[in-house]
């Protein structure tokens, strides 16, 4: 059965993508006359659409202030829910845009266990699907779980939201992922333009216009996340909605038992800043691809409960929301073969004004014609009345889209909860449907006359100077957005100062003490380590046994038991040999060997006793070690022993990857505790495992031993 279903769904999904693309929207006449029995789709008059029924959101407030909504629903043996905290992007501190989102990411991986992967595995085992929810004004998690997993999933939610244990390693991973997302987003003109557009609409420095940056995220510290969490993640600021196959009284008892102990009180959370539209402006941004232009025009409109919100939505759809809408019908790119994309939409926000946006993507030389076309369509719109057929088509399209936005229990639950938080009436969805259905041609004509493209905010991405000239001809002076300084971890890295250097020394000394005593550590002169390196599939798979030998200060040799291959460095330069020929170290092998040397545990433990090393404390009970261009962090556990080595590499695609080496199974060697098992995670995912087979120290290694060529 399951297999049959999976196969059917997979097939359907695959083929949907293959379905023939819609023909260009020239088709305006109704279909040819049909046999008597069948009314043609366009001629048919359809009955009004039924109302959306949102779940009734009767809430109870627990003694700790948590708002709880319980909706009994016995259709299927499942439980669905959402925990929402009033703390979204608009609550970011002015100098920390992106902190709210990062905090949410960090919550997901916060865990008392050593790897956050354990929690994901548990959710997987319980059949729980959990998603992050994030908006400007709130954030949280929503989930679907089998009834049997109800208690477990609520325990996980409670652990994440009410008593997270933030860890430096997990935070670094969350930061790396956040930066990767931004990097990809910046590479996508449509997304970058939309982000910039909203930013300009509200003002770049406003709560709703501030933008996250890679460098900004790289700078964020564990303290920032902890503070943000403490400020906003309090029960008084949180709502938990549950819907499903449970007895409400029993569920309430369960929630009280689990969440009742969460009793932090920060007073009332800060009020949400009021978003205000900034003066219209035109901005141009340089893109890597200068052959195309991505353009957005528009303005901030009215709120969902204000008069005309529904009419604006219908008007936007009439303009460019369906395949036969006005913009798509009339505007053509003059560039042969240009795949012109055009559309208009009304972006609905439950808790603030909606936004009218018109988007176009065209070949660079086609921009002038597209701008002219848009202007002409606005002229036509304000000059000639909307036809009844057009109005009906647009209303129907809006209503169809609305129906789709409520077509699962979870969507309805999330919408009901969001409506609650935004202070909307409980039946806001069906009210909105009625308002859309009641929009008249007169409403549309009236609104159309108020539109003036000259007052639109414009954002365009492409070849800046070319766009600037074309916009000038269109009557708009556009400002070129200055290129952002190249972001990167280096620019954002923490810098040592006397205080953190002193603190770092203390932490390191404590680690040496916990390892068996500073004196014992100071005696370390050489080490020979034989270990099995097993790589996960993401790293290519495979297993090999390697022997690494190190001699003070930076002599290092690595060889495999199975082949005559060996590599040596003196810390600066070296060679690689296959037993017959030798070559100087270079390229990836050079990088690899020096990385291994830098992370070689016995040497790492020496701290800044080694020449050329800088050591200072960073947040989260950790020190940063720098040696030349290399840097890494050593995180300590409560006993003071190192528990984790943390560093960053770049993936082949140039995206940041955080590597966590979890140090485990400590055993004494020469009086010093050393890890015999190292689990390596890349961006939180298990990548490889190192199992030490033998480790000897101070066995009197000589440089000649390490430099042998066969």
């Amino acid at each position: 059965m399951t297999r049959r279903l999976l196969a059917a769904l997979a097939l359907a999904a695959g083929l949907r993508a293959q379905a023939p693309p819609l023909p260009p929207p020239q088709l305006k006449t109704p279909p040819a006359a049909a046999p008597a029995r069948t009314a043609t789709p366009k001629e048919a008059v359809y009955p009004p659409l039924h109302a959306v029924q949102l779940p009734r959101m009767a809430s109870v407030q627990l003694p700790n202030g948590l708002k709880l909504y319980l909706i009994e629903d016995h259709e299927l043996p499942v439980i669905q829910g959402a925990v929402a905290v009033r703390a979204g992007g608009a609550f970011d501190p002015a100098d920390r845009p992106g902190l709210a989102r990062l905090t949410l990411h960090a919550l997901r991986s916060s865990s008392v266990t050593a790897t956050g992967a354990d929690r994901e595995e548990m959710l997987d085992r319980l059949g729980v699907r959990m998603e992050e929810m994030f908006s400007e004004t709130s954030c949280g998690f929503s989930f679907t779980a089998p009834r049997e997993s109800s208690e477990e999933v609520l325990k996980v939610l409670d652990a994440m939201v009410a008593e997270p244990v933030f860890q430096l390693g997990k935070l670094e991973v969350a930061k790396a992922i956040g930066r990767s997302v931004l990097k990809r987003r910046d590479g996508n003109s449509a997304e970058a333009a939309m982000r910039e557009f909203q930013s300009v609409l509200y003002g770049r420095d406003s709560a709703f216009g501030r933008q996250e940056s890679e460098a900004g995220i790289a700078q964020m510290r564990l303290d920032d996340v902890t503070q943000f969490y403490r400020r906003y993640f309090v029960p008084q600021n949180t709502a938990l909605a549950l819907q499903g196959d449970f007895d409400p009284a029993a569920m309430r008892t369960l929630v009280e038992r689990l969440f009742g102990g969460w009793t932090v009180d920060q007073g009332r959370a800060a009020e949400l800043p009021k978003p205000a539209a900034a003066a219209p402006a035109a901005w141009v941004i340089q893109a890597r691809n200068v052959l195309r232009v991505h353009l957005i025009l528009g303005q901030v409109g009215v709120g969902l409960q204000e008069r005309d919100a529904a009419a604006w939505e219908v008007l936007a759809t009439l303009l460019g929301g369906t395949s036969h809408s006005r913009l798509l019908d009339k505007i053509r790119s003059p560039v042969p073969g240009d795949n012109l994309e055009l559309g208009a939409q009304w972006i609905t926000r439950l808790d603030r004004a909606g936004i009218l946006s018109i988007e176009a993507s065209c070949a660079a030389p086609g921009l002038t014609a597209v701008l002219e076309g848009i202007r002409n369509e606005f002229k036509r719109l304000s000059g000639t009345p909307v036809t009844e057929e057009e109005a009906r088509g647009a209303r129907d399209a809006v209503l169809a889209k609305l129906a789709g936005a409520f077509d699962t229990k979870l969507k309805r639950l999330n919408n009901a909860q969001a409506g609650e938080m935004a202070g909307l009436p409980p039946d806001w969805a069906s009210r909105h449907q009625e308002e859309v259905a009641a929009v008249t041609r007169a409403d549309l004509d009236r609104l159309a006359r108020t539109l003036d493209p000259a007052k639109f905010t414009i954002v365009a991405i492409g070849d800046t100077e070319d766009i600037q000239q074309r916009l000038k001809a269109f009557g708009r002076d556009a400002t070129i957005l200055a290129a952002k300084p190249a972001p990167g971890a280096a620019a954002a890295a923490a810098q040592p100062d006397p205080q953190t250097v002193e603190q770092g020394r203390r932490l390191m000394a404590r680690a040496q003490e916990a390892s068996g005593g500073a004196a014992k550590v100071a005696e370390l002169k050489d080490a020979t380590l034989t270990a099995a390196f097993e790589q996960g599939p993401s790293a290519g798979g495979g297993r090999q046994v390697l022997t690494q030998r190190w001699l003070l200060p930076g002599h290092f040799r690595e060889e495999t038991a199975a082949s005559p291959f060996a590599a040596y460095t003196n810390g600066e330069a070296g060679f690689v040999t296959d037993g017959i020929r030798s070559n100087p170290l270079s390229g990836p092998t050079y990088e690899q060997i020096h990385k291994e040397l830098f992370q070689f545990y016995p040497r790492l433990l020496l701290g800044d006793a080694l020449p050329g090393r800088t050591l200072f404390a960073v947040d989260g009970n950790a020190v940063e070690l720098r040696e030349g261009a290399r840097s890494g962090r050593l995180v300590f556990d409560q006993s003071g022993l190192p528990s984790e080595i943390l560093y960053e590499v770049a993936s082949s695609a140039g995206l940041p990857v955080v590597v966590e080496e979890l140090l485990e199974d400590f055993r004494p060697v020469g009086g010093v505790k050393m890890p015999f098992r190292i689990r390596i995670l890349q961006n939180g995912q298990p990548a490889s495992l190192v199992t030490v087979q033998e480790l000897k120290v101070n066995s009197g290694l000589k440089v000649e031993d390490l430099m042998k060529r066969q």
Partner: protein
Amino acid sequence: LFGASYAAAQPPAAPGGPGFAQRVSDIAMPSGLHLVILERHEAPTVSFQTYVRAGSANVPAGQSGLAKLLEKLAWSGTESIGSREWASEKKALDAVEEAYDRLQAERNKGPKADGVKITSLGFDVQRAAERAKSFAKAGEYLQSLTLQGATGIGVAVSADSIQYSCTLPSNRKELWFSMESQRLTRPVLRGFYAERDSLVEQARTRPAEVRAADELAAAAFPAHPYRNPMYGWTGDLESLRTADLRSFIERYFVPGNMVVAIAGDITPAEARQLAEKYFNGAAWSAKPLPVAVPTVDPVQSMPRTTASYSATAPMVAIGYRRPDQLNRDDAVFDAIQGILAGAKGWLEQELSQKSAIAVSARLQAAYPGARYPSLFAVMVQPAVGRSVDQVAAGVQAVLDRLRSQPVDDATLARAREYVRTTILTALLQNASAATLLAASVAEYGDPQEPIAELERMEKLSAADIQRVAAKYFVPEHRTVAYSGPPTAPAAGGEK
């Protein structure tokens, strides 16, 4: 059975609303067509799934590829939708067939055929097709739906079934009935030969995994039509005619061989009334049901291997004989899939992560179909330097773990949750719920089959898994197929 289940009075409103069982009705129309309704009135949308009990296993000999071609022509339209002027278009389409008849007649002369004449007759066919195309409105059928807010329009062809899906705002439900009734039984197969030829090209460039899977089926089923590849045998597809497809439709698209599942904002009474209004006329009258495939494969008692050349990446497909879906062990295979499949499943863990035999390993619990005895199949992309024998031994070793001892409680729980979550997630959304309900009635004769499977999972034990694994995952019932470059080591050697 007629009308039995929905004629009952509305159940009293209980706190928490009606359960799934009360929301489902199975209506048998006098024609034999089954309508399955899942009532959900909370949002005004409705999802449709049409399930035809016929697939690539049902095409006549010499016409393999026919079912897949139906997928390409699913939305080619009807007499009233998709035509500029039907009378002229009909004439033009007939002219295409006549031109093709002449071409065929010349080809049939065999060695005495005139090559020049064949070329010229081929041009005649093309010209006739171009002319017919000028009377057509390409894409009008789909556009008529999407302009009315349709989403999730899809078609899927398998060895056992052809399925169509569509979601509409619920006030457009009548539109679906009117369009679907024409499309299913009286489609106009516009652009038949162009679509056929594009499918030939698609078949030629099919991915390595599909090639290996085709090899597997051809070797594992000596007689049963499950051996026929979805894209057809070389030569079959190229020779298909419009009349072949038409007679396939006449034979299999009969009411008693179809199920329509509808999930969303619709009542059983409405659905029945619309079905009576539109699914009527000669095409929708009760007709004899097509005969089930009678062929039974000889019993396999030795391992089989096969290998074929392909310039694509090497792939190994391994199949173990398994019974059909109505067998009591069917649910256990689903649970085993939950243990073996996925990134955290045993196959990936063992073959890719631990022993580095494979780059990837995928699983299909019943391949290519399930209505007849088929295969429990594993598709493996071997790691560089790994031989077919190593892959086969690696897969067998994983399965032997299931055979030699009962799985631990955590693994059993994982298997259960996999099946349960798959079903529950599907039932939560109207479109996938309709897919599931249509298959339940068409293949199991019971709309409550998903719920029954949930209950079966409650009772599933580690002993069940061990018993089924021990019974079926034996080398004697195994077929190993390799497809890839000939340079791969030891292709086809069974030791």
